[in-house]
């Protein structure tokens, strides 16, 4: 293992790593460009490199991109990828408070923590972790996503009913196109390009970026810029100290990320949302979440980075690519004549360990570059809305078109954008809709495959009588009970506050005798 570290620390490998991270940061920061796309584009360049060197550059891109998707989420309320949806919940409110730099530093510090813990699991515990992931069948996938759906309560905004309706709407939108099970074409209403379904990135740009553009337009007479930039000395030190004071948040989020990361098909978007929900649930300052909490940004970013790194575990240990980037890496390994699986650790341990260490080092490089860039990036919010609105519009259109090279996606972006803007006006938060879109294919796959299994074994046996399912059901019930309890307590507190305000006002007007 030490041999891998020494190799990863040689100047040549470090150069490749830094180049990869920089490339990843550029790709991740542009909505519509994904880490998968960037790693896939780099595959031909790895032909000429040693297998370990090729993996190092791909690892750098992956880790850099996983951090950088937080940049547009924080600055313009537009997640660069689905994994940064939860980052936007608190990142953008921080920007509006003039704390964009703090939010960006929190994101890159969290990326460092997440990538480090994920890489440690990859280096030390990959085979047993991969074996655990194999015990997850369709019923467990169904229950893990049902558990994730309970997150809606955290991100629903003011109205719980609208939050749940938004989540169901997101799930329904995720069913557009050819079914994940059965293969029937659904809800396309004769529009052929919709057969491939709504592209998640396009939907996210529509849900988050487009309404933001219209809001900037609305505010242009009262607020000329997207947010304030306040130059705070020692912003990096203060932010890191704030996050370190709550180490449990970072550790818990990392472990959630690792656990969800090893499950093929789930990955960083689910991990970041679950970690955000748990951070809010266990925080003493849960009321700050959604209004600009550094711990909210950290939870989401720690989880998505540890999850991204952990998603490599089933690939290396079992030969199962559980995430799109892992599939690209699988291809690179095959090109170099290496077959992923348990044998890889035995025969090519040096390559695996170099790759693992490079992911950890990529976290450090990302942290250093991210901290250096946080000040100039934070100043982006000072660009006048008159300039920012057209540029974001151009980027949104390019990002939507680039995925499949069809204008239909651009029209989908417009439709979802206008819809999300109008729904936002009547109290719908885009978070639950995004959550539904992300979880839809996973929950459907789990539900329908479990139904098929239950025809042979009985539904009770399939859904309720498996040990892992029972653990997940217990977690789901606990989550629902806790949600109802906290919502009720919050409702009572607000009612009491409102009553106190009325009494104070009446007293001030002389209506009630102070005695």
């Amino acid at each position: 293992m030490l041999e891998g570290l020494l190799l990863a620390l040689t100047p040549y490998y470090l150069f490749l790593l830094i180049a990869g991270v920089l490339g990843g940061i550029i790709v991740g920061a542009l909505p519509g460009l994904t880490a998968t796309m960037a790693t896939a584009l780099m595959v031909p360049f790895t032909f000429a490199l040693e297998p370990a060197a090729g993996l190092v550059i791909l690892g750098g891109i992956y880790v850099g991109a996983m951090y950088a998707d937080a940049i547009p989420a924080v600055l313009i309320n537009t997640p660069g990828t689905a994994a940064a949806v939860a980052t936007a919940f608190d990142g953008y409110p921080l920007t509006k408070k003039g704390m964009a730099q703090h939010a960006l530093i929190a994101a890159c510090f969290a990326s460092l923590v997440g990538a480090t813990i994920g890489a440690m699991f990859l280096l030390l515990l990959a085979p047993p972790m991969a074996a655990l992931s194999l015990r997850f069948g369709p019923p467990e996938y169904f229950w893990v996503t049902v558990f994730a759906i309970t997150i809606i309560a955290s991100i629903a905004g003011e109205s719980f009913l609208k939050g749940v309706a938004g989540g169901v709407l997101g799930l329904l939108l995720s069913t557009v196109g050819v079914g994940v099970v059965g293969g029937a074409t659904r809800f396309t209403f004769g529009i052929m390009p919709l057969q491939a379904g709504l592209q998640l990135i396009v939907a996210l740009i529509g849900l988050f970026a487009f309404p933001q553009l219209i809001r900037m337009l609305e505010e242009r007479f009262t607020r000329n810029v997207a947010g304030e930039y306040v130059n705070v000395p020692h912003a990096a030190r203060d932010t890191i100290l704030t996050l370190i004071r709550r180490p449990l948040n970072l550790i818990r989020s990392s472990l959630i990320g690792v656990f969800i990361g090893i499950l093929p098909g789930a990955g960083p978007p689910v991990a970041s949302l679950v970690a955000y929900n748990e951070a809010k649930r266990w925080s003493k300052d849960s009321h700050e979440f959604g209004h600009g909490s550094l711990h909210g940004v950290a939870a989401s970013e720690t989880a998505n980075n540890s999850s991204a790194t952990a998603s490599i575990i089933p690939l290396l240990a079992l030969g199962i690519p559980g995430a799109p980037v892992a599939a690209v890496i699988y291809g690179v390994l095959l090109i170099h004549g290496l077959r992923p699986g348990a044998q890889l650790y035995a025969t090519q341990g040096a390559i695996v360990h170099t790759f693992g260490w490079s992911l950890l080092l990529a976290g450090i490089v990302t942290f250093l570059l991210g901290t250096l860039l946080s000040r100039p990036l934070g100043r982006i919010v000072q660009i006048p809305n008159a300039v920012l609105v057209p540029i974001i519009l151009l980027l949104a259109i390019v990002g939507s078109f680039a995925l499949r090279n069809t204008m239909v996606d651009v029209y989908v972006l417009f439709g979802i954008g206008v819809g999300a803007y109008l729904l936002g006006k009547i109290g719908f938060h885009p978070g639950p809709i995004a959550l539904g879109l992300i979880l839809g294919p996973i929950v459907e796959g789990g539900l329908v495959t479990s139904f098929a299994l239950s025809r042979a074994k009985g539904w009770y046996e399939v859904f309720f009588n498996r040990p892992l399912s029972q653990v997940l059901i217990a977690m789901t019930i606990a989550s629902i009970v806790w949600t109802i309890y906290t919502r009720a307590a919050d409702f009572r507190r607000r009612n009491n506050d409102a009553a106190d305000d009325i009494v104070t006002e009446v007293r001030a007007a002389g209506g009630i005798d102070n005695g």
Partner: protein
Amino acid sequence: MAELGIPNPVVRGERVNSDLASGLSMLVFVVLGFIGLRGRTGDSWIFPRVLVWTLLILTIGLLAKGFIRAERVEMFASRGVLRDVILFCIVVLGFMRLIPQFGYWVASPVVAFGMMIVLSPEKGRRVIIRSAIIVTATMVLLYLLFNRGFGVPLPRGTFW
């Protein structure tokens, strides 16, 4: 509507019964859902069916809340803002229609330049020059990143 005992979703200018409006919005999706489900059977339709029925229940809940304990929100600060929003949407839609005709590299700078001039609170030659420089720089950057760097083709039109 008021004569029939149905609460008007729009009350006093731009204040809206948001629960009723939400219920009606969701009803649109429910109706589309049922149209899509009509006559369909098989495994592919189990999940959508569950969702459409769930959404119907939630829609009834929202509509009921709209009648019983409505929450009212201000949709637009003024009619001027509403007009700006509608105009922006029309411009964006027009831009999307222009792209297949003229190509992204012709339509985009024209629309972006026009938008910057119109949205800018200050007017005059300085704004025009500044906007022209920013648009040119943005287009060059996009070209280098997408076309040259990542090899991503952008929409082409009759002219380019």
